[in-house]
C-alpha cells in the first residue's frame, strides 16, 4: 500500500431489504482512493455507482451495508478508521462526513436550501466541523467561493441559490464541500445537469482544486468523455459489481472486459460520425421559417414590469425533404420553443413558418387555424424528451400507439391491433408488449413506443425534442440507429433538437446552432462539428469532452 492511499474499500456489499428477500445493490466492491488522484466510477444507470459513494459515507438507508471494510486512513497520524461498522447516526461518522469526506450532488438546486443564503449554508458547514468563530467562518467561506472562481465573492456570499445560475450553484456546492478542506471529495454526476460549456468549466475547476489541494476525488459519471478528461484511475461497474479497474489510459486503450469495450464503442461510435454515409440533401423544402420572433410576455407585477424573455429572435431555418436537421444550443437557447412554435403550441409575434403539405398546398404554422383540421398533425409528428412523461401511464401500449389511428378514423378493431403489433415489431419490441402498461418498460423501450406512436400515421416530418438525452450511451445509439433506419424506410425528414454535440455529429445532416434565441450558424454537421466558424460555436464544440485520455483538452494544465 502506497503512502498516498487514503481510502481502502474491500469486499463491500450493500443490500436493499425487501419483503421478498434482499436485493443486492452492490457486491464485493474493491477499490482504493489515493491523495492527488481522481478515480472515476463509470457505468450505466442502476450499476451501483451512487450506492458505492453513499456507502463510503455510510448513508445508504434504507439499504444496509451487508459486509466489507471501508478503511479511512489518517495520513498524518498513520491511523485507520473503519467506517462501515460505525453507527450511521453516530458521532464518529458525522465527524468524518463533511470534514474528511465531502460530497457534491448531481442536482445543485435541490441540494441547496432555497431559504438560506449561500453564505449561511457554507458557514454552517464550517462551524459544524471546525473550531472557529463566525467571522472567521465567513472569511473562510468567502475564500472558498473565491477558490471556486465565483466572481465578487464578498457580494455573492449573501445571495440566495435562486439568484445563481446552474453552474454557479454547482460551484457553490463545491465551495461548501471544500469549506472544511476534506481529504476526499465525492462528486456524484456533478456535471450531468449542466450545459457542455458549463460542464467544461466545472471539470476544469475540480481538476485544478484537486491538484492544488492534493485531494482524492471520487468522481461518478456515465459519460466516457468526462472520464477521459478528468480521471487518473477508472473503476467500471456493471450490475453492482466492479468489472474493471485500471489507469485511465489502460482502460481506454487496452480495455479487458467486454462491457468496458462496449461502453467505449458506444462513446467513440458517436464520434466516428463521418463514417456514416450522408444522404444527398434534396432541394425540396418542407418547412421554411422566416424571421420568427417570439418574446414571452413580461409579467406585469403590481408595481414594476418584469422584462420578457426573447425566446426566438428572427429565426430562419429550413427543413428539406429527407434530411435530418439538428438544432443545437444550450438550455434556454430557444430550440424547444422553436419546436413548439412549429407544433402550434405557441404563436410567434412576427415571422412566418411555411409548411408544404403532402397534397401540394401550404400552411402557415404560425397561424393557429392551420392546425384546426388536424392534417398538419398527421404529417408532422413529435417524439418527446422524457420517455416517462410522454406515455399515459393509464393506457396500455396498444391504446397509446393506436390512439392516433383511432381518432383519425383510420383503423379499428382487429386491423388496429394488427397494425399496432406491426409497428411494435418495426421499432424492435415484441408485439406481445401491446398488452402491457408503460411502467413495465425501461427508458429506451418507452422511447421506442413513442417512436411507434409517431410513425403510426405515416408522417413526413418528425420533430424529436431531445429524444435521446434521457437515455444511457448504448441505448442512445440504438435509438438513433432506429431513427436512421426509419428515415430511409419511410422517407422521413427529422428536425432533431439536441444539446449533445456527439449525437448531432453522428446523427444529423445539417445543423443550426442557436444561442439566446438566435441562429448563429448553419451548415452541414461535419462543417459545424469539425470547422465551426462562429466564436460561439467554437466555444460550444471545444467544450465537448472527447472520450480519449490522450486527447485531453479541457483540463490540460
Amino acid at each position, binding site marked *: 500500500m502506497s503512502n498516498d492511499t487514503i481510502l481502502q474499500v474491500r469486499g463491500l456489499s450493500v443490500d436493499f431489504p425487501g419483503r421478498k428477500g434482499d436485493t443486492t445493490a452492490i457486491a464485493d466492491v474493491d477499490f482504493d482512493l489515493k491523495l492527488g488522484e481522481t478515480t472515476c466510477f463509470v457505468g*450505466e444507470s442502476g450499476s451501483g455507482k451512487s450506492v458505492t459513494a453513499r456507502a463510503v459515507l455510510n448513508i445508504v438507508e434504507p439499504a444496509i451495508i451487508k459486509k466489507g471494510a471501508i478503511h479511512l486512513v489518517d495520513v498524518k497520524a498513520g491511523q485507520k478508521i473503519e467506517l462501515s461498522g460505525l453507527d450511521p447516526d453516530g458521532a464518529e461518522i458525522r465527524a468524518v462526513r463533511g470534514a474528511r469526506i465531502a460530497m457534491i450532488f448531481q442536482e445543485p438546486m435541490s441540494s441547496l436550501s432555497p431559504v438560506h443564503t449561500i453564505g449561511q449554508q457554507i458557514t454552517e458547514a464550517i462551524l459544524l466541523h471546525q473550531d472557529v468563530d463566525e467571522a472567521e467562518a465567513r472569511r473562510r467561506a468567502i475564500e472558498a467561493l473565491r477558490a471556486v472562481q465565483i466572481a465578487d465573492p464578498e457580494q455573492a456570499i449573501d445571495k440566495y441559490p435562486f439568484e445563481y445560475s446552474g453552474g454557479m450553484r454547482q460551484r457553490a456546492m463545491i465551495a461548501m464541500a471544500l469549506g472544511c478542506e476534506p481529504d476526499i471529495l465525492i462528486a456524484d454526476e456533478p456535471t450531468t445537469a449542466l450545459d457542455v460549456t458549463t460542464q467544461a468549466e466545472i471539470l476544469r475547476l475540480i481538476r485544478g482544486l484537486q491538484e492544488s489541494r492534493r485531494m482524492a476525488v471520487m468522481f461518478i459519471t456515465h459519460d466516457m468523455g468526462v472520464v477521459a478528461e478528468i480521471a487518473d484511475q477508472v473503476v467500471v461497474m456493471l450490475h453492482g459489481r466492479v468489472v474493471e479497474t485500471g489507469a485511465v489510459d489502460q482502460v481506454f486503450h487496452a480495455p479487458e472486459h467486454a462491457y468496458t469495450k462496449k461502453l467505449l464503442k458506444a462513446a467513440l461510435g458517436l464520434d466516428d460520425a463521418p463514417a456514416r454515409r450522408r444522404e444527398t440533401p434534396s432541394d425540396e423544402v418542407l418547412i421554411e421559417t422566416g424571421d420568427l420572433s417570439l418574446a414571452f410576455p413580461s409579467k406585469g407585477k403590481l408595481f414594476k414590469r418584469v422584462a420578457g424573455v426573447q425566446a426566438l429572435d428572427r429565426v430562419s431555418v429550413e427543413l428539406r425533404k429527407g434530411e435530418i436537421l439538428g438544432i443545437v444550443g444550450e438550455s434556454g437557447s430557444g430550440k424547444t420553443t422553436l419546436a413548439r412554435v412549429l407544433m402550434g403550441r405557441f404563436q410567434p409575434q412576427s415571422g412566418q413558418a411555411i409548411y408544404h403539405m403532402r397534397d401540394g398546398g401550404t400552411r402557415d404554422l404560425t397561424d393557429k387555424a392551420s392546425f384546426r383540421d388536424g392534417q398538419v398533425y398527421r404529417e408532422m409528428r413529435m417524439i418527446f424528451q422524457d420517455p416517462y412523461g410522454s406515455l399515459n401511464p393509464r393506457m396500455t401500449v396498444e391504446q397509446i400507439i393506436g390512439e392516433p389511428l383511432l381518432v383519425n378514423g383510420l383503423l379499428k378493431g382487429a386491423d388496429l391491433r394488427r397494425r399496432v403489433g406491426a409497428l411494435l415489431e418495426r421499432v424492435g419490441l415484441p408485439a406481445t408488449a401491446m398488452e402491457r402498461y408503460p411502467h413495465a418498460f425501461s427508458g429506451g423501450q418507452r422511447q421506442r413506443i413513442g417512436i411507434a406512436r409517431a410513425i403510426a400515421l405515416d408522417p413526413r416530418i418528425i420533430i424529436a425534442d431531445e429524444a435521446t438525452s434521457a437515455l444511457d450511451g448504448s441505448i442512445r445509439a440504438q435509438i438513433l440507429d432506429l431513427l436512421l433506419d426509419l428515415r430511409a424506410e419511410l422517407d422521413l425528414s427529422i428536425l432533431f433538437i439536441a444539446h449533445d454535440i456527439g449525437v448531432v455529429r453522428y446523427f444529423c445532416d445539417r445543423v443550426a446552432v442557436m444561442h439566446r434565441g438566435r441562429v448563429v450558424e448553419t451548415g452541414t454537421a461535419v462543417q459545424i462539428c469539425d470547422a465551426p466558424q462562429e466564436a460561439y460555436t467554437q466555444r460550444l464544440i471545444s467544450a465537448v469532452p472527447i472520450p480519449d485520455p490522450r486527447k485531453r483538452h479541457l483540463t490540460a494544465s
Partner: protein
Amino acid sequence: MSIIPPADSPDTRLEAPSGDIDPRIDGNAGTESQWQLIRRRFSKHRLAMISLVILALFGFVALFAGFISPNDPGDVKARYTFAPPQGLHFIDRTEEGWSFRPYVYGYDVEIDPVALRRTFVIDEEKKIYLTFFKRSWEYKLFGLIPTDLHLIGPEKTRDPLYIFGADRLGRDMFSRVAYGTQISLSVGLVGVIMSLVLGVIIGGAAGYFGGWFDAATQRVIEFLRSLPTIPLWMGLAAAMPSGWSPLQTYFAITLILSFLGWTELARVVRGRFLALNGEDYVAAARYDGCSHGRVIVRHMVPAFTSHIITAASLAVPGMILAETALSFLGLGLQAPVISWGVLLQEAQNIRTLATAPWLLVPGAAIVIAVLAMNFVGDGLRDAADPYAN
C-alpha cells in the same frame, strides 16, 4: 452505417446487457392496469382495510336499518324510560349443558321510595331468549317493500330488548342509532356528490381553459372560503321555512353543506388539470388529433379520478360532522327525523347524561365512522399516487 446492426440489436432481449433493464418485463408483469395496482397497494394498507370493513358494516346498517332494528325507533314505552343497555349473551349454560342460544337478561324495576325514581336492575334470573329472523313491527325495506322481518328479536314480542339502552321516552337507542346511520351517512354522501358535480365542472373548466373564467372562479372560491361557516349555516338554516317537511329540510341541509363543500374539490380538480396540461402525454394526445373532449375524458380524467375519489372520501366525514353540528345546535334536521346529530341533542343535558350515559352512543358511532373514513381516504391517497414509490 450503424454502430449496432439492427439485425442483432438486443431488442428481443429487451436491452438486457445495458443495465437499463426493468426486471418486471418478464412473464406477465406490466399488464396490470392502474386500478389493479391501486387495489393491490390499498390492500396492503392494514388500517385502511380494517376501516373499509367497518365502513361496509356502517353501510349495511344504513341500507338495512329496519331489518337490523329490533324495535320501532319511534315507539314510546313509558315503562322502560332510561332502561340501561342489556348485554348480549350467545352461549346459554343450563343444567343440560352448553348451547348456542342468544339471550339477554330481563329488567327488575325498583322504585326509590324517597326520590320516587325508577332504577333498573338487570335480573340474571330472567332470561329473554332471542330468535333470528323474527317477524314483528312493520317497516318498508329501502322505503319501498313492506315487510316485518328483523334480524333479531325476543321470542315473546312483548319482552324488552334494549341492546344500547333506552332514551327518556323508552325508545330503543340501538334502533335509533341504526336509523340515524341511514340519515347521517346519506347526508354526507349526497352532499359530497353534489359538491363533486359542482367542483368537477367548475374546477375542470377553470383548470382546462384558464383565462378570465379561472380568475373569476378562484376569487369566488376565496370569498366563499373566507366566510365563517357556522354563522353562515345558521343563517341559511334559519332562512328555511318552518313549514317544510322533514324530507325538504333534509335536502335543504345537504344543499347548504355542499354549497361550501364544492370549493375544496374544485381546487383539487383545477390543480390536477393545470398539472396535467403540462404533461407530455397530454400534448401527445393533442398531436394525435384528439378533440378537447377526448383529451379531457380519455387522457386527463383517468389520471385523476383516483385523486378525486380520495378527496371525496376525505370530504365525507367533514359533511357528516357539519350535519351533526347543525342538528346538535337544533338548526339542522328536526325530530321526528333521526340523525346522529338529532340523537346527540338528547345528550345535551348533563343531568340526563349522568343517569343515562348510553345516550352518547351516537357520538361513538360518529367518531368511529369519521375515523374509518379518514383512514380509508388516507389509504386511497397513498395507493392512488402512481409516482409515490
